[in-house]
């Protein structure tokens, strides 16, 4: 069967020499280069493109641009598929594959259409009301509902495309390249200001591309455009971005724009680029959307917006139908009638709700011999997959009903116009308030928090001349405000139809009096009818935000671009209120749907998050280490030999450190260089213990508290010289501690002479520990006396190790004799390799963070962030010894003295020894006093650390238990999913409690 073509003989901005093949719902079609999917479908006479969301009614294309509510398609196949694309915005490319959504199994024979017959049973709130019972069944319903009502499918696998983000700055960002935006960009650009002009369409021009009845400077608008655009493109500081939707206006001139790849660009280019723009001035030339009229069966395929009918003819050379009636409340739709006539399309009737339409456009239409039915409205329509006819009747004087006889007019298309709604989305997003304009029947921009100026259609100015003048003035002013001198230029002369005032008929009466308005569609995308709005009002959902959520009007991918004003107006009618009294909902970004990939950008895969490695990392890798993430750091966890389990590897590493010598990469510890005359006084204030009398060359362990008395960080700090200290922090706390110290210096104690510098990464640290560590170090370091007398525990010496200048610290996190060797990072790997080589004959064994944990847990040394969680005091940890009683103040002293922190039943650090010596209790397990068969049980604490200890030959655990210190020797229970572990409370030290080994 040959399809009838709706392509006109001439006109349009399409390339008739370049056919483009595409596939829709499995059928092959041909369009032309320059078509959108929508225009190509219309050219091929395809009028049915979608099923409606709830009732599965047949739907066709309604609009020309981003406001399209019906024609949502699934575009592409495989992992590159994208749902919810508006056919009106898809540029036709060779091989394009698209499919309609929300239908099953076929668009023409959709089973869900049964819902349409059931529509009286599916009112607003139906899902909320019906699927609440029985309780807990929602999850079962949801699965089924989503399948039936789904808006497209997500791709099954990773997106094959890539996305970019770009920061940009400008003096003036102009949103929209219609007449107002072009004039604004030209005026601002001429002044030398940095200007970005962004438009969502493939070429600049906006409505000027569609209007063949406007002349500028004596030429048709579309012919006048190229010279202006060439001027703009010649300006070095002006950037024109097409296919770019400004989808968010945020605080302080921050805007987000989504730029789409042009069809002719290859997949090497990002599919979308998310621009993050900081603009000194913003000009909102976003235009206006035409809105439909609300009448019975106003959703049939073939019923379209009047401006869209005009646009398809002038821009794409496609007529949506062969017999097109017009139904309107304003003059603008008369332009559509004239365009249709000019292109030889039959216009059987113009139905105007106004009783006495008058003016040049009306005269022109009458002069063309067209029938104008003034004071009439469409009372009903017929046709299932395509409009067949309309029935019109004369409106009663008050517009509440019909009089006279009904007349049926056959037509395949109805061009509808209920007026224009300025696209105030961005203005409103930026915190702008809106004011109702009665004449226009729309909300207009009012006050704004931003440096944003609405112009043209967005500001309610509908004439081309007005748009050009407003844009011109605003562009110049914005450039001036941004510091650029305006350069005068004449305004173009415009010849266009003048229009008289529109009228507003928010609800066309039902065809038969008293019938519910159940087929008067307000929101096509969400299948919301005037009856639903009435129902919401009856049920008390009169707040505009409740109305939106209860009926779902204005939700979904089009966010009510065509429906909002009609819904508000109908609510106003029901409530007997004016529209400003009803108010409007909040506009939120994004303006049109955006691919999530654009927001991820390149922050994926290996670039998702930085992985920090130490200087010794290549050695760890080469020697088969397994790694664990500690914050962003990648630390060697343990070094399994072939065939070894983790437990076996860790046991071996721990034993070597206790019996011979172990080697740990401790480079990640935070390190801060502290200089200044008040350095010791400063440490005295931030640590709980005393620092004033520490001798140069000696080191001390310190605990930092928050002002609330809770443990925040710990580490060893060494006095390098009278006025200089080397502080270490935990690996995870390095950044926060530096910031915290800097905050105190700058905000509370600016009088202190103290300078802080992070040197965390300047130093690579290899820690030797174990009874043979001194012997090993002695083989590589000859310029430092390593004897216990000359180099005691908790001191520091400078010297060379393996020929590398080093700072050697005698501190211990293992309980063994230990030397932490610090060298510049560049030498870290060389030092490590030298230690490994020299240590081999002594039984040296590199160990990872897991063995480090076991070693310190055996000694009962805490790890901040493991034994503590921001609610633990030094007293809870049994570390009273480090809290100075003599100092009058330090950060946290007063907090620590709060009544509640002195209670005896606080959680205290204890050891736990499982009764079964094979049972390693999981970390995080809850400790209870009495086990019951099922929760709840009274929890008295939790396990913070738990390991198998090869040194003790049994599992050990640390735990925070309520009043734990008084429970030593008692048995507690730890209920797990599969068993209950009994454990005896012990002191939190399991090995060498006196600390003799590390002092030796």
């Amino acid at each position, binding site marked *: 069967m040959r399809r009838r073509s709706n392509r006109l003989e001439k006109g349009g901005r399409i390339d008739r020499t370049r056919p483009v093949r595409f596939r829709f719902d499995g059928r092959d079609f041909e369009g032309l280069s320059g078509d959108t999917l929508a225009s190509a479908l219309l050219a091929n006479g395809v009028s049915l493109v979608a099923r409606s969301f709830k009732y599965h009614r047949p739907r066709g294309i309604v609009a020309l641009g981003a406001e399209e509510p019906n024609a949502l398609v699934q575009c592409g196949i495989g992992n590159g598929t994208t749902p919810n694309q508006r056919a009106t915005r898809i540029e036709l490319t060779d091989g394009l594959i698209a499919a309609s959504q929300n239908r099953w199994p076929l668009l023409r024979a959709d089973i869900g259409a049964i819902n349409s017959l059931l529509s009286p049973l599916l009112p607003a709130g139906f899902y909320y009301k019906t699927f609440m019972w029985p309780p807990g069944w929602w999850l079962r319903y949801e699965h089924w509902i989503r399948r039936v009502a789904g808006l497209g499918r997500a791709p099954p696998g990773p997106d094959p495309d890539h996305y970019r983000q770009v920061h940009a700055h400008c003096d003036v960002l102009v949103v929209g390249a219609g007449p107002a935006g072009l004039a604004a960009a030209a005026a601002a650009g001429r002044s030398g200001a940095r200007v970005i002009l962004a438009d969502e369409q493939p070429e600049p021009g906006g409505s000027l591309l569609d209007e063949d009845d406007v002349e500028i400077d004596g030429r048709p608008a579309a012919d006048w455009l190229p010279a202006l655009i060439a001027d703009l493109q010649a300006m070095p500081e002006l950037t024109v971005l097409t296919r770019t939707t400004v989808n968010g206006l945020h605080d302080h001139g921050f805007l987000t724009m989504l730029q789409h790849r042009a069809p002719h660009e290859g997949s090497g280019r990002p599919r979308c680029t998310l621009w993050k723009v900081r603009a000194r001035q913003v000009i909102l030339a976003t235009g206006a959307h035409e809105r439909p009229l609300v009448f019975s069966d106003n959703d049939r395929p073939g019923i379209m917006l009047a401006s869209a009918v005009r646009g398809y003819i002038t821009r794409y050379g496609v007529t949506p139908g062969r017999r097109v009636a017009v139904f309107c409340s304003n003059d603008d739709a008369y332009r559509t009638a004239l365009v249709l006539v000019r292109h030889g399309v039959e216009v059987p009737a113009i139905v105007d709700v106004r009783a006495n339409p008058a003016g040049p456009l009306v005269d022109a239409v009458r002069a063309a011999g067209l029938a104008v039915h003034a004071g009439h409205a469409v009372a009903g329509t017929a046709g299932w997959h395509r409009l067949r006819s309309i029935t019109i009747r004369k409106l009663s004087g008050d517009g509440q009903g019909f009089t006279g006889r009904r007349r049926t007019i056959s037509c395949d298309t109805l061009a509808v116009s209920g007026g224009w709604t300025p696209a105030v989305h961005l203005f409103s997003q930026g915190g702008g308030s809106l004011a109702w304009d009665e004449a226009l029947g729309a909300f207009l921009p009012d006050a704004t928090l931003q440096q944003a100026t609405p112009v043209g259609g967005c500001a309610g100015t509908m004439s081309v001349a007005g748009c050009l003048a407003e844009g011109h003035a605003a562009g110049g002013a914005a450039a001036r405000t941004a510091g650029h001198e305006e350069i005068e230029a004449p305004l173009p002369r415009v010849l266009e139809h003048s229009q008289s005032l529109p009228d507003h008929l928010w609800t066309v009466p039902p065809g038969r009096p008293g019938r519910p308005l159940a087929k008067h569609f307000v929101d096509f995308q969400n299948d919301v009818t005037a009856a639903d709005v009435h129902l919401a009002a009856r049920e008390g959902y009169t707040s505009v935000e409740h109305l939106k959520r209860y009926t779902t009007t204005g939700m979904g991918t089009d966010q009510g671009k065509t429906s909002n004003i009609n819904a508000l107006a109908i609510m106003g009618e029901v409530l007997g209120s004016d529209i400003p009294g009803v108010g409007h909902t909040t506009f939120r970004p994004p303006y049109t749907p955006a691919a999530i990939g654009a927001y991820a950008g390149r922050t994926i895969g290996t670039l998702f998050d*930085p992985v920090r490695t130490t200087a010794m990392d290549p050695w760890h890798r080469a020697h088969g280490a397994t790694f664990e993430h500690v914050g962003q*750091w990648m630390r060697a966890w343990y070094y399994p030999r072939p065939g070894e389990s983790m437990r076996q590897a860790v046991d071996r590493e721990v034993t070597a450190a206790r019996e011979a010598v172990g080697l740990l990469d401790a480079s990640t510890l935070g390190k801060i260089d502290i200089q200044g005359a008040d350095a010791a006084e400063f440490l005295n204030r931030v640590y709980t213990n005393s620092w004033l009398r520490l001798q140069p060359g000696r080191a001390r362990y310190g605990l930092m508290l928050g002002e609330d008395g809770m443990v925040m960080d710990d580490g060893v700090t060494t006095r390098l010289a009278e006025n200089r200290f080397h502080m270490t922090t935990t690996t995870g706390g390095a950044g926060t501690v530096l910031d915290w110290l800097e905050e105190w210096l700058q905000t509370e104690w600016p009088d202190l002479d103290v300078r802080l510098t992070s040197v965390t990464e300047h*130093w690579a640290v290899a820690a030797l520990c174990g009874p043979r560590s001194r012997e090993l170090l002695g083989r590589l370091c000859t310029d430092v006396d390593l004897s216990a007398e000359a180099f005691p525990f908790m001191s520091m010496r400078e010297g060379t190790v393996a020929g590398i200048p080093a700072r050697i610290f005698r501190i211990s996190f293992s309980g063994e004799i230990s030397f932490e060797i610090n060298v510049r990072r560049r030498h*870290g790997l060389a030092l490590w390799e030298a230690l490994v080589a020299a240590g081999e004959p002594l039984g040296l064994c590199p160990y990872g963070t897991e063995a480090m944990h076991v070693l310190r847990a055996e000694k009962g040394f805490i790890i901040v962030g493991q034994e503590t969680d921001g609610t633990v005091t030094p007293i809870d940890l049994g570390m009273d010894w480090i809290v100075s009683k003599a100092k009058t103040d330090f950060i946290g002293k007063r907090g620590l003295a709060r009544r509640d922190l002195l209670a005896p039943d606080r959680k205290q650090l204890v050891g736990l020894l499982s009764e079964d010596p094979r049972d390693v209790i999981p970390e995080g397990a809850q400790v209870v006093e009495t086990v019951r068969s099922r929760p709840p049980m009274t929890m008295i604490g939790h396990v913070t650390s738990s390991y198998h200890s090869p040194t003790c030959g049994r599992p050990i655990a640390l735990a925070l238990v309520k009043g734990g210190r008084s429970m030593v020797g008692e048995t507690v229970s730890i209920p797990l999913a599969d068993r209950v572990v009994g454990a005896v409370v012990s002191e939190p030290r399991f090995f060498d409690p006196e600390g003799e080994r590390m002092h030796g």
Partner: protein
Amino acid sequence: MADHGAQACVTPIDVLATPPGGPRDAGITIRERRLLGKLLLRGDPHDTDFNDIVQRTVGTAPPITPNRCVFHDALAVIWLGPDEWLVVTPPGREDGLLDALAAGGVAVTDVSDQSTVIRLSGPRAREVLAQGCALDLHPRSFSVGSAAQSRIGRVRTTLWQVDDRPGYDLLVSCSFAAWLWTWLTDAGGEFGVRVEAG
């Protein structure tokens, strides 16, 4: 002097072992400026003693205008804060300078190995940086001698413009350098990336 010069010096980008090369007409060129000396100075710029010592040892007074750096005799002095500067020296010159400054009583810290410097240059350098850096790098607001501390992607970076090619030095903590290097090659991929030996 000890024989540590004989020890292998390893930089964070050495570890990536990126082979030099790439198209001649590449949009960007990247190179690690290996093992530069870096000293962090703290002091009051209005204190004449401090200024004199810095002038005498470094050869130039520290810039007091924020977001600026000065170049002198292969050294760069970068403003980091109202009492904080970074002196970047050719490899090996940091030790002598450190001693001279410390002898003059300046609070100075050797941070040579805290970070490394990546030189990014080429006609598309600005566009590459714009993909991850929120600074306005347009010549009207950022030019040779401009410096700023900010973020590139997910990494804190100090950058300063060294020439009009344009060329930028990017100072980044060692442990983040590999990430930044990878990020630059990714962001520049569309324009062609040339890697030069350090």
